[in-house]
């Protein structure tokens, strides 16, 4: 059952469930209505017959002068009994009188076309003899179904003595016909309700699920490479509308990520192509004959060496970026900031002996960080500061303690960065200056490395006044 359901589409499952519920509810209602009508008709008929029989019987008892102590019909002559039976017999209804053993004493049937009274059913008869007044049952023994009423004969109303039983039987033909018509009407009504209901239900499910189908069609198109596709939302606020807008939001994010990835790859390829062009061209020129000129060999070889160095550095930086995608590559250690900076500034001064490099020391904080990466971050920022400021200006490092974090500042007094390019400086391969020195990965790496530590990096710059890079790292 479970696998069968799982194999059905959502739409089919909804429709199946809906149809089952509809059939059940309409069926129960119809059955109840049928049963109710049947019950009503039978009650009505039997009440009517009883009401008619009661005065006849009472009159007859008093006319016979039956003593209150009598408990049998043996003393009453047969014609008198027959007179009662005949009085009680009317159109469609035949009366007969039964003694205590269930023997039919007389029958009210006069004309041969009138139905024969059915043989008494002993179970009901015994109940009547025990004093039960209103026994009604359906007798199916003859060729036609009959409704049978049993009325105990008492010497006086309320007496516990029972002389015998009057059995009234009437044909159920009329009732059955009414019931048949009623049942037929019910069936037709049910059929109409079911088909209408099922139709409307299927339409509702279909229109509800249509957007799901649109969604899956869009998914297939996207899988085929059409990333610009979106699911129409059109002012829907139901669950499917929410799903559609969530789906669209996810697509926006994915598309942006893919675009960034594509841009990154294109930029990386471009950065690789320039040194490769130089290498290929230089080699061709050498092989074509420049190899015979020692001066040309030296010049071209030096250029090629520089390009190979550039390629290697670029590859290392790209690998670094890729490695930083997961923070699992961090090798965190306890770093004492004061001694770390003292060592770092010595290295920095060796890189640029003519430059004024100073450290405004903050408190001696210890933090958990990858010291190699921290050094790389500061070195990249230092190189940028060197390249974008004049040789007579200073480069200042400083740090201070924030709640749970440390803030490190790298400040230069150089040319600054124009406002319009400031938001882009952390993008890979972005280079503000046309006479680019590197591949434009330095600040991208700084950002990745800082973020790998759970920190953040921001940049403030004023054109002509200088630039400050602010690194905030968590202590742990």
């Amino acid at each position, binding site marked *: 059952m479970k696998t069968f359901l799982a194999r059905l589409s959502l739409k089919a499952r909804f429709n199946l469930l809906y149809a089952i519920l509809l059939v059940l509810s309409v069926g129960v209602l119809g059955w109840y209505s049928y049963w109710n009508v049947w019950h009503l008709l039978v009650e009505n008929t039997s009440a009517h017959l009883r009401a008619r029989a009661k005065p006849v019987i009472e009159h007859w008892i008093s006319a016979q002068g039956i003593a209150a102590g009598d408990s049998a019909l043996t003393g009453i002559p047969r014609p008198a009994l027959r007179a009662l039976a005949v009085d009680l017999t009317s159109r469609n209804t035949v009366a007969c009188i039964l003694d205590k053993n269930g023997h039919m004493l007389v029958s009210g049937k006069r004309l041969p076309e009138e139905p024969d009274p059915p043989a008494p059913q002993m179970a009901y008869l015994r109940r009547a003899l025990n004093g039960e007044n209103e026994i009604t049952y359906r007798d199916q023994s003859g060729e036609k179904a009959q409704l049978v009423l049993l009325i105990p004969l008492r010497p006086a109303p309320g007496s516990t003595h029972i002389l015998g039983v009057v059995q009234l039987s009437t044909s159920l033909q009329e009732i059955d016909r009414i019931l048949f018509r009623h049942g037929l009407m019910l069936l037709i009504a049910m059929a109409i309700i079911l088909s209408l209901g099922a139709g409307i239900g299927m339409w509702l499910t279909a229109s509800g699920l249509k957007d799901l189908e649109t969604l899956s069609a869009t998914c297939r198109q996207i899988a085929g490479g059409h990333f610009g596709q979106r699911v129409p939302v059109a002012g829907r606020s139901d669950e499917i509308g929410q799903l559609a807008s969530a789906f669209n939001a996810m697509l926006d994010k994915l598309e942006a990520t893919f675009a960034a990835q594509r841009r990154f790859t294109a930029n990386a390829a471009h950065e690789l192509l320039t*040194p490769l*062009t130089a290498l290929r061209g230089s080699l061709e020129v050498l092989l074509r*004959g420049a190899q*015979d000129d020692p001066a040309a060999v030296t010049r071209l070889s030096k*250029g090629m060496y520089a390009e190979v160095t550039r390629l290697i550095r670029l590859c290392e930086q790209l690998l670094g970026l890729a490695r930083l995608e997961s923070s699992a590559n961090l090798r965190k250690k306890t770093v004492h900031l004061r001694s770390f900076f003292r060592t770092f500034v010595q290295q920095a001064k060796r890189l640029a002996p003519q430059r004024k490099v100073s450290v405004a020391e903050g408190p001696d904080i210890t933090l958990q960080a990858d010291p190699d990466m921290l050094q790389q971050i500061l070195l990249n920022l230092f190189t940028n500061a060197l390249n974008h400021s004049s040789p007579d200006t200073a480069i200042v490092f400083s740090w201070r303690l924030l709640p749970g974090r440390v803030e490190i500042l790298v400040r230069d007094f150089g040319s600054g960065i124009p406002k319009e390019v400031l938001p882009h400086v952390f993008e890979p391969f972005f280079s503000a200056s*046309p006479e680019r020195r590197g591949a434009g990965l330095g600040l991208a790496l700084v950002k990745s490395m800082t973020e790998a530590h759970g920190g953040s990096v921001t940049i403030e710059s004023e054109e002509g006044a200088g630039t400050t890079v602010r690194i905030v790292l968590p202590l742990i």
Partner: protein
Amino acid sequence: MAEKKRILVIEDEPVISEFLRTGLTYEGYEVVLTGKGSEGLQYLQNNDVALLILDLMLPDMDGLDVCRQIRNRGDALPILMLTARKEVSDRVKGLDTGADDYMTKPFSFDELLARIRALLRRFGQQNEDESIRIGSISLNPQTREVTYHGVALDLTPTEFALLELFLRHPRRVFTRETLMNRVMGYDYIGETNIIDVHISHLRDKLGDKPPRLIRTVYGVGYAFHPEQAE
């Protein structure tokens, strides 16, 4: 020898302009280098240039703008664009702006030379499709026919390539390595004395007797001396 063709190279990558300068100079062109579009435009206004090699990404201006300005001035000199952008739309844009040819990085220097020759030929500045005539030697690169004193010579492709190289660069001394690279391909690996074999076959076919057309420069290689071809 005809006057050297002057080629202006506007390219900001120093290593690329360096090999272009060395390589093109070796091929007999006069090379003028600049890294800036504005400087290039200025140079073009005051000097006669046979061909322009233009990089699309320049520090001071877009290469397409340089191209557009040259054409707006009514200058029809052949322009060969260099770029790292490979998309067809970029090439179309470059050619529509007025470039005559387009090469994407990394390009082959040999192909660059071929395209330069084709452009110069198309602009009627170099009659390369006609025979090279030196003395009584005539060589036609198109039909690959060689005649010496009016007699047709039957040369192998390698011998033909050697003779063409010598005729194009009279008196230049070629080392065996260079000759091997030029006629057998850069990826050919083998002993350089294979060149001696080809040279001796070529000399036999030319009936080259001392003092020779193709002279051995001892300890270096070979050089072609056209005065012997009279």
